[in-house]
């Protein structure tokens, strides 16, 4: 049977809409179309949708994420969008007024149900539990650790009813452990299966520490997510078969487990629902005693629309949905735009073996419901968002460097809180990286994101410690990690046979920036390792310059020479082929721009280094694979066919994606740092776990991806909070090659603590002496 037949039957009632629609079309013609927020990557699918329904009177507005969409609706740049209840909460907190909920997205199977699911508490009658205050010391079954219906929602109510807060303060520990501690001390025995923290060994350690939290599981020693006493029905199994007192699950599971819709199983009468007000209700289909009802995903619009407009908009949405349900014929698949543009079918009902999800239209919620009252209809669903953990009072403070970055940080704060990630993020404003490092050091902020060089500096001078690294994008899934590959790029037309890498000698080089690890430090270290340059530490720079025939462009070389008291740095040679703001070397319009460490220098940065090749000025450019693929080639400004890779054995590769086999070393990614010291251990763990949760939830592939774009330009600004090109966060691991990358050069250039300075001077002096000796 075509599953869509059913959809037709259900929407039969909306045949009236066809008529409405026919008449409405006439009025539509004069009206501005309703603007639907569509994620930028699905704009093409929106065109497909509009082509399928030519008179829809809808147009799509490209948005970066849901927060961008909410902003656009409030700015009258968009009119409507589908949002999960958690995002309704975000919308309400973000812009207090001006929104209305106009239509819900319901599953066909449950189209008469007013809520998507209803968390309930089932109690063994003989336990004598009469109210919430009777719960302490009982045996409690849960769907799983950290899950919504079975963990966070009961947790939020126990917090709200003052059952847990005093226990929360019983231990000084990271939030995750505080939560475990509180529940462990509140209930006598529990089954809370699943990973409590991402790391296996730490998870085992915690499970040993709080054994009663796994005691009711079928396999207490494993206590894993797939435990038979976990999950919606598993929690009921735990209740009925392990002699527990209470189980937290959802209404559907109670109906199917106890077979309430047919012949209730034997023993059903031994249980009843415990209601949030302390009363109890028999187990039957008429239950009205859930703890919090999760509303459906719904369409949000603006209250500036007249009620007539809202009616038209609802009709337009229905028409699109009807068309989407009609379209599948042979392959029985809904068009992609149903899922990605209208967001109607992205939540297939778990237990049903079909995907005939249907959009159900509810006019009664349509006219006057604000997002917050939409949530409160579900027994104050907001409470479940605001109090799902012990950590409601604390925060981790992210250091940001300008107003706009703070604005992204505040959006992150809201998006994370909306998804029950705690402790909450706070945002602390500083002017520079250095000020951020100081603020983290003295406790005014808790974390800062730094480049590997700055991170190294902050570790040495301010005792900060890295806890997380950004994960870099890579073509090869198995090679994804907290590092980039330094690569050497030459022109594909380069006739030179580099069979032996020493043939690189005398070639002209482009390095992007003296601060660039891939552009400067990596080739320096590699040429040293290959014994093509050598000698005392500080002589390397000069030797490298000589290796390239004193014809290089290393933007910034002229700036570091002075502040670091390295007047001997061969500035002239390191800047000799730089172009400044002119078309070629020696033709700068503004002399001062030559060799400047910013985009006023034509050959600045990775793109500039490649430009240096294309201009025929340089022979080799040193950049990294993320810059090449993630930025330059992705933007379409340059063509891959113009370049090839030069490997350190002298071979070349025209396939630019071969950087794993053909590279000049690994460069660590940006790192999240916090304070060292035993007294900050709890804070460090909170920072680490919270940011990991944020990246898992809001980042690519996360449950709430699309709410806030973590990685990517923000209103045209680059690298706010995280690098635009990153794809996630992971635990910090040092890249072993890194120390040797920076040691040789940086120990000569960065002036560190003043107390060390005298010894540096001696070092530099002896280097200079040596170099002078060599020249004489």
């Amino acid at each position: 049977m075509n599953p869509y037949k059913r959809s037709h039957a259900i929407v039969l009632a909306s045949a009236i809409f066809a008529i409405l629609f026919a008449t409405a079309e006439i009025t539509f013609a004069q009206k501005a179309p309703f603007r639907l927020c569509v994620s930028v990557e699905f704009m093409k699918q929106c065109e497909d949708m509009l082509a399928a329904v030519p008179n829809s009177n809808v147009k799509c507005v490209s948005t970066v994420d849901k927060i961008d969409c909410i902003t656009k609706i409030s700015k009258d740049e968009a009119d409507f969008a589908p949002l999960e209840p958690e995002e309704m909460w975000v919308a309400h907190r973000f812009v207090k007024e001006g929104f209305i909920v106009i239509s819900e997205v319901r599953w066909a199977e449950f189209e008469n149900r007013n809520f998507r699911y209803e968390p309930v508490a089932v109690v063994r009658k003989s336990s004598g539990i009469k109210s919430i205050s009777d719960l302490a010391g009982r045996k409690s079954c849960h769907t799983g650790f950290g899950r919504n219906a079975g963990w966070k929602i009961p947790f939020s109510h126990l917090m709200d009813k003052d059952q847990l807060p005093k226990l929360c303060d019983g231990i000084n520990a990271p939030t995750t452990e505080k939560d475990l501690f509180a529940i462990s001390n509140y209930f006598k025995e529990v089954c809370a299966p699943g990973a409590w923290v991402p790391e296996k060994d730490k998870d085992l350690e915690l499970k040993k520490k709080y054994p009663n939290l796994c005691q009711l599981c079928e396999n207490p020693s494993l206590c894993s997510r797939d435990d038979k006493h976990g999950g919606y029905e598993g929690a009921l199994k735990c209740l009925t078969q392990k002699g527990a007192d209470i189980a937290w699950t959802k209404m559907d599971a109670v109906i199917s487990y106890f077979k309430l819709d047919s012949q209730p199983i034997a023993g059903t009468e031994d249980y009843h629902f415990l209601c949030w007000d302390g009363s109890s209700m028999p187990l039957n289909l008429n239950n009205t005693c859930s703890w919090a009802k999760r509303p459906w995903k719904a369409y949000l619009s603006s209250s500036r629309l007249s009620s007539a407009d809202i009616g038209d908009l609802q009709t337009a949405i229905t028409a699109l949905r009807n068309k989407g349900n009609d379209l599948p014929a042979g392959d029985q698949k809904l068009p992609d735009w149903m899922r990605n543009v209208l967001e109607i079918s992205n939540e297939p009902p778990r237990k049903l073996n079909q995907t005939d999800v249907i959009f159900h239209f509810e006019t009664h919620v349509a006219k006057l419901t604000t997002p917050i009252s939409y949530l409160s209809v579900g027994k104050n669903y907001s409470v479940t968002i605001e109090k799902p953990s012990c950590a409601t009072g604390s925060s981790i403070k992210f250091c940001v460097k300008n107003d706009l970055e703070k604005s992204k940080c505040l959006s992150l704060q809201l998006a994370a809180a909306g998804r029950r990630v705690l402790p909450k993020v706070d945002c602390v404003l500083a002017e520079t990286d250095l000020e951020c490092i100081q603020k983290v050091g003295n406790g005014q902020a808790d974390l800062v994101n730094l480049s590997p060089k700055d991170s190294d500096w902050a570790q040495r001078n301010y005792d900060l410690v890295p806890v997380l690294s950004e994960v870099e994008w890579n073509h090869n899934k198995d090679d994804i990690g907290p590092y980039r590959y330094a690569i050497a790029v030459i022109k594909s037309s380069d006739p030179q046979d580099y069979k032996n890498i020493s043939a690189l000698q005398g070639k002209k080089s482009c390095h992007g920036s003296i601060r660039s690890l891939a552009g400067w430090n990596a080739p320096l270290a590699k040429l040293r390792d290959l014994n093509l340059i050598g000698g005392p530490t500080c002589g390397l720079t000069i030797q490298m310059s000589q290796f390239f025939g004193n014809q290089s462009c290393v933007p910034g070389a002229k700036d570091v020479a002075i502040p670091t008291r390295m007047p001997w740095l061969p500035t002239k040679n390191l800047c000799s082929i730089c172009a400044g703001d002119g078309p070629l070397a020696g033709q700068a319009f503004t002399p001062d721009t030559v060799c400047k460490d910013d985009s006023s220098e034509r050959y600045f940065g990775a793109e500039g280094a490649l430009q240096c090749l294309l201009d025929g000025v340089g022979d080799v450019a040193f950049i990294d694979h993320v810059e090449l693929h993630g930025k330059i080639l992705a933007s379409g400004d340059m063509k891959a066919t113009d370049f090839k890779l030069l490997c350190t054995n002298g071979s070349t590769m025209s396939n630019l994606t071969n950087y794993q086999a053909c590279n000049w070393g690994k460069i660590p990614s940006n790192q999240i740092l916090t304070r060292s010291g035993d007294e900050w251990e709890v804070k460090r763990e909170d920072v680490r776990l919270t940011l990991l949760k944020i990246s898992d939830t809001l980042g690519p592939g996360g449950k709430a991806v699309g709410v806030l774009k973590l990685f990517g330009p923000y209103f045209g600004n680059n690298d706010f909070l995280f690098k635009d090109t990153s794809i996630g966060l992971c635990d910090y691991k040092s890249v072993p090659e890194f120390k040797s990358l920076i040691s040789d050069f940086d120990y000569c250039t960065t002036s560190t603590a003043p107390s060390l300075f005298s010894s540096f001077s001696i070092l530099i002096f002896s280097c200079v002496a040596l170099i002078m000796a060599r020249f004489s």
Partner: protein
Amino acid sequence: MVLQTHGIKEWGYCNHNGPSTWGENFPLANGPRQSPIDIQTDNSTLDQSLTPLRYEYSKKSKTLVNTGAGWKVTVVGAGSVLEGGPLNYKYKLEQFHCHWGNDNSCGSEHTVDGKSFPAEIHLVHWNCDKYSSFDEAVDKEDGLAVLGIFFQVGNENGTMSCVTDLLHRVPHKDDIIPMEFEIDPAKFIPENPSYWTYPGSLTTPPCLESVSWIVFREPVDISEKQLEVFRSMYNYGRLDRTPEDEFRGKILSNYRPPLELGARKVRYCQLG
């Protein structure tokens, strides 16, 4: 390791943290050169030596912020200048903000012969001849110059609409948005350029005594609706609970009542 000292009560305009309590944490609030004041027209001296002010502003602003005590627009300083009048240096515009009351009988910080206006805007400038930044100037005797302009209820203020149209997007404390429209702060200044001037202070903590005050005599219009938009802002953060103070978290009123003039003199420049 140095730890930040937390726990200083946040100042505000409610009974428990209002202007009368500021002196506990900000001793300068009890100083001799505090603002605002009641301008007594009979006691102000007509000063013929005072010249008209000269001002020129960039129309570019940076951000609109809910400070928890009101709103503030930060501006692009480049290309803006204020000089003349009582000022011996050139000053640069840093930001502007407003003060208002819960009904139209109060709201302005300065009063004239005891009379309040429903609101008052402050254009805050710093001495860019002597100092290199606002932060450097803020606590210097001649560091700041603030223009004060009274609002009276009347027609909608077109320039102010640029702000009021955006305020719903910064409902909570610390909310911040980039300003996308141009806004010319000079348009807040009344047609008649007559003003009073006296040495005073910031009217909010830390109440630094660094301000040359210039208060225009002629009020300009603002509509009742615009004032209502001011009063609809909230003084708490997005994720904070609604405070249980007498304003229930709304910024209904954010003016400091007048302080003693003491030994200071108010000079008057009559023009136009």
